[in-house]
Structures are given as structure tokens and as C-alpha cells.
């Protein structure tokens, strides 16, 4: 383990060691892939960000049991401190226990919301780094994906969380069901291939590289911190919800200006639920136009409307693992590379 990281983790919240070199470079250690899950393995559920009730995680618990996993419910499930799943101390302690407990093979976050940033610097990843396990979630949990990727290069799963498991599978929409089932596929080591319908705004091409990304606003707010991602040579995916167009534009400028767009192998644009412009403040560009303008100086493939984001079709993606993105006029696919390097 890198001494700097060790130091900052023991320094706790007081530590604010700036890593100002954003975006471009790549000083990573080799990728570690946690062990895939087998029937009987234990999955921990915890809430590092927003709160969720015990009742709300029942569908997830039942499904995990059907998949053959044992479930450990963390102390923060059912806890609430305003919007948070318990106080910072409680959320950090619960997450730390799950990181350190060797019997837990995967940590599924209850939901996103907000709050991960309060505890990320309190967590000690020493034991986790020596015995990695899967960390599962998205949205605010993007902080974990970025932090783990940047500091330890340990693969993690970007996917839906407990709050999105259908109450009743018989009436669940196919896309929702498929999105949830993709978590199981990812967790058990099935390499996934996601085909999708081409969008006329796509830029054709083939890219191969490590997959990295998540919620765009979260990625922006990690810039300049020790959780900031490095994107050179990688395939970046981004999604967001509830942002104004001008804000989405500004976030793509942040990616540009922090050097995260120029050395990409490929770009995957997921769902962007846009907050309507205020009257008289019409931005005048669509998300497609914003993105297209941002990447016009480069030549790598770009695809839009990828099924990742705050929506029903949000398929599990393995961050850190090599993928192949193929974008043509006829089809688009993202495939896990056969052998991760």
C-alpha cells in the first residue's frame, strides 16, 4: 500500500492532502479483481449515503436469497439522521465493519442520495486492499468507484442498489428486472455484453480499455481530490439526473479542463434527465450537442443513450475492468474483454 494513502487514512477527516494533478496521467498499480461470488457467500447491505428503511430493502434481501447468497444487514439500515443513513460516525463504522469482515464477500449499498463524501476519508482500506471484495452501487457511490480505482485499482460494480429491486417480480418491467439480474451476472463472474440501439449522434469506432466513470456531477466534485479519476487510455461512462443543461455543459467543461476527455479511448453517455430551463434562460443546446461539441477535437468512439443512469435500464458495469466498445451505424455493444490485463 502506498504510504501516502496509508497516512491519509489514519489521519482521518482532518486530512486533506491535495492531489492536484487531475485527469490526464496514469500512475496506477495493476488491477485487482475481487473474488466472484458463489452460492452461500455473504453480501452485506449498508447505507454510506442516504437512508433506507428495513422494509424498503426486503425485495433486495429476498432476491439475494433466491440467488443463493446470505445477507448481512448493516447497522445503518433503518437508521436515519435527516437525509443520511445515520450520523457520519455510524455510517463510517458500519461501512468499515463490512470492509474488514472477511466473511462478507460483497457490499451492496442501500441507496445513493448524498453523504459518501463525509466518510470516504475516514475509511481505512488497508484490510480491504489486501483482501478485496465487491462494492456495489452508483450515483453518490461513484465516490467509492473513483476512490478505489484511483488509489487501489480494485474493480467495483456500478449498478442499481437495494432501493431499485422490484417488489413483485411478476409485475416488474422487463428492463428493471434485467437491470437487477445484471448485478447477479456481474457478481458471479459472468462476463457481460450489452448490445443497444444506435443513436444517430453516435461516433463510430472501436475502443478497448479499462471502464471507468459514474455520476458526472460526482466526478466533477472529486476533481482535485485524492479520489479524482485518471482517464487516459480508458473508456469513460457518465450519467446524471436533475441538472440544468447549462450545468451539464459546465460539467463537460470540467472534464475537458481537468484533462479527462483528451486521452480517452471511448466515451459512453448514459441517461441524462435534464432539469428544464428556467423561463428566459433557455440554454439552446441539447445534451447531444453539448457532448458532441466537447469531444469534437478527438476521434474516439462515442455512444449515447447507454443503459446506465437514474432510470429503469441501468445495467451493471464493472469499473476498472477492460471492456471493448464497438460503435457502428448498425449496432453498439459493450463487452467485457475476455482476459482482463
Amino acid at each position, binding site marked *: 500500500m502506498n504510504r501516502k494513502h496509508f497516512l491519509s487514512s489514519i489521519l482521518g477527516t482532518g486530512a486533506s492532502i*491535495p492531489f*492536484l494533478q487531475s485527469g490526464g496521467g496514469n500512475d496506477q498499480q495493476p488491477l485487482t479483481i475481487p473474488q466472484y461470488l458463489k452460492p452461500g457467500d455473504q453480501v452485506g447491505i449498508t447505507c454510506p449515503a442516504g437512508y433506507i428503511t428495513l422494509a424498503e430493502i426486503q425485495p433486495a434481501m429476498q432476491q439475494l436469497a433466491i440467488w443463493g447468497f446470505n445477507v448481512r444487514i448493516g447497522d445503518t439500515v433503518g437508521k436515519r*439522521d435527516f437525509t443520511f443513513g445515520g450520523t457520519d460516525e455510524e455510517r463510517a463504522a458500519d461501512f468499515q465493519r463490512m470492509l474488514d469482515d472477511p466473511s462478507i464477500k460483497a457490499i451492496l449499498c442501500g441507496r445513493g442520495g448524498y453523504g459518501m463524501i463525509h466518510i470516504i476519508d475516514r475509511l481505512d482500506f488497508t484490510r480491504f486492499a489486501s483482501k478485496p471484495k465487491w462494492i456495489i452501487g452508483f450515483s453518490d457511490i461513484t465516490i467509492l468507484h473513483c476512490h478505489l480505482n484511483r488509489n487501489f485499482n480494485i474493480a467495483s460494480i456500478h449498478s442499481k442498489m437495494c432501493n431499485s429491486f422490484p417488489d413483485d417480480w411478476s409485475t416488474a418491467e422487463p428492463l428493471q428486472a434485467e437491470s437487477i439480474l445484471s448485478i447477479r451476472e456481474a457478481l458471479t463472474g459472468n462476463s457481460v455484453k450489452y448490445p443497444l440501439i444506435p443513436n444517430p449522434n453516435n461516433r463510430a469506432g472501436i475502443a478497448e480499455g479499462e471502464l471507468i466513470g459514474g455520476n458526472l456531477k460526482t466526478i466533477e*466534485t472529486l*476533481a482535485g*481530490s485524492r479520489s479524482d479519476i485518471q482517464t487516459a487510455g480508458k473508456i469513460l461512462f457518465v450519467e446524471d439526473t436533475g441538472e440544468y443543461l447549462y450545468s451539464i*455543459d459546465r460539467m463537460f467543461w*470540467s472534464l475537458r479542463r*481537468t484533462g479527462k476527455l483528451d486521452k480517452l479511448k471511448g466515451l459512453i453517455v448514459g441517461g441524462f434527465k435534464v432539469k428544464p430551463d428556467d423561463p428566459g434562460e433557455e440554454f439552446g443546446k441539447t445534451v447531444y450537442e453539448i457532448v458532441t461539441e466537447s469531444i469534437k477535437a478527438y476521434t474516439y468512439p462515442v455512444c449515447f443513450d447507454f443503459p446506465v443512469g437514474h432510470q429503469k435500464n441501468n445495467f451493471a458495469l464493472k469499473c476498472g475492468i477492460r471492456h471493448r466498445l464497438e460503435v457502428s451505424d448498425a449496432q453498439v455493444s459493450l463487452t467485457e474483454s475476455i482476459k482482463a490485463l
Partner: protein
Amino acid sequence: MIKIPPYLQPGDTIAIVCPAGYIAAEKAQSCIDALKEWGYQVKTGKTLGGDSPNYFSGTDKERLADLQQALDDDSVKAILCGRGGYGTGRIIEEISFKQFRKNPKWIIGYSDITVLHSHIHSNYAIATLHSPMVSAFNDGEYRNEFVQSLRNALEGRKIKYQCAPHEFNRKGEAIGELVGGNLSMLAHLTGTSSDLKTKGKILFIEDIGEYLYNIDRMLHQLKRSGKLDRLAGLIIGGFTDSKDTERPFGKTVYEIIRDVVKEYRYPVCFGFPVGHCKENYALKTGVGYKLKVSKNKVTLEE
């Protein structure tokens, strides 16, 4: 060493340009009249008013050209930005500061114009002016002490600002260069070539219309990118129209800020008159100030 542009003399020219959002020409009339009354000549750029169909005061090219012209025109002694909004960050890397560095002039504005303050401070160490813009002059408000503080600043008068104490204030005295502006912009610029350097300085922040959780998140970004731990002092301005989510955040804006900086020892004052409100004093960014926070009052002087 920080370079301070020459203060203005009667007869000097101020250019009004809009590097970000659109503002109608008629909304600048009170401002133009007042600047003339103060003894200045006014040049208006093509981006003031005009026929832009959208949010921006012109295309990136037009906004860039207008600002560039004002920067390069040696007869212009100060550039007043028409308004903020959004857009300066889209052209900042295209601007040539070559002539400006040879012949510094005052760049005036706030909100989105924080991009210019931060960029110029960190790259060129030239003082700029964080202050009310064009619309602050409207409705007879050009007489108020906040708009007048812009006049005083332009004339080179050193003013000692005072503000009421706040229960969250942390007492102490700080001396350092004053830097800062809009929190959203400072967070957004982190990791870019316009990123603000804050070590040993007095930082001021303000914002408008942001969700509480987002203010919290941006403060954590400043903290985690090393902008809060080695400050000389911190000035908290207005956080107007802050919004809460359906699931309440559980803290007020000032409680959020107090808690983020509670581990540090430097003086902090809350409720300083700077922000998206009438109470918005002109502040010279990059210039040395002394901040005194005591039980009964707060003063900020050059």
C-alpha cells in the same frame, strides 16, 4: 508580488462587455449614466444587448472577441462585466492575456466572473475587482453604499468595511491576500488551469440558489482539494435562496460551513455583505487585507 492595475482618473474609459449571460441594453442605461456621472467615459461592447437568441450574450466567438478587444484596447482602463450567468468558463482558455499583463486594468464583476478572478489571480497575480455589476445600478440603487463601494474601489480609496457579528463567527485576526467569489465556480474550477490558490490567504465565498447538500458537497471539494486547511481567514457572504431536498438536509447553510471548517483555527465571519444580493461590497481580489473578527464586530480593511 501582486500587480495592482492603475486606479481610475476622471475621463478614463470603462468598457462594458458580457462574457457570460445575456443582458438587454436598456438594463445597462442606469449604470452607464452613473459611470458618466462619476466622471468616466463608457464604451459598450457588441455583447451588451444584441440579438442573441439564447442564454448567452453572443456565441463563444463573439463573447471572446468582445472581451479580447476590451483587454487589448489600451484606452480602456477597466472592464465591467454586464452580468454573470454562465459562459465565461467556455472562453477562458481562448483569451490572450498578453496585452493585459503588460497593461493591467481592472476586471469587474462577480458570480460567473469568478472564473476571471480565479484565473487571473492564479496565473498572473494581477488584482481584480469582485463587485456589483450593471443591474445593481437599476431602480435608483446606484446611490447605495454597495454600488458606491465600486466607485471608491475604482478611485483607489481604501475603505474599511464593517459587518455585524454572527454567533458562529470564530474570533481572530488575519492578514493576507483576499481571494474568492462564487462557491459553485470555485468548486467547478478545481483541477483546471484556473484553479484558485488559497494558501495563506483570506478566502471569501458566496452562492445563490443551490441545494444545501450541494453546498455541503462543494465545500468538501474545496476541503479535499486542499483549499481550506491553510487559509489565513474565511469570509462567508450571502447564500441566498438556498434550497432543501424532499428529505431535509438537517442543517442551515451556515451550520454546514461552520462544521466543515471547525477543525481549523483561523478566523471565520458569517454574513459578510458579499453575494447575490444588494449587500455586495466591492472587494479587490489579490490585494492584501486585514480581517478582524471580534465579539462585537467584524472589520475588513485593505
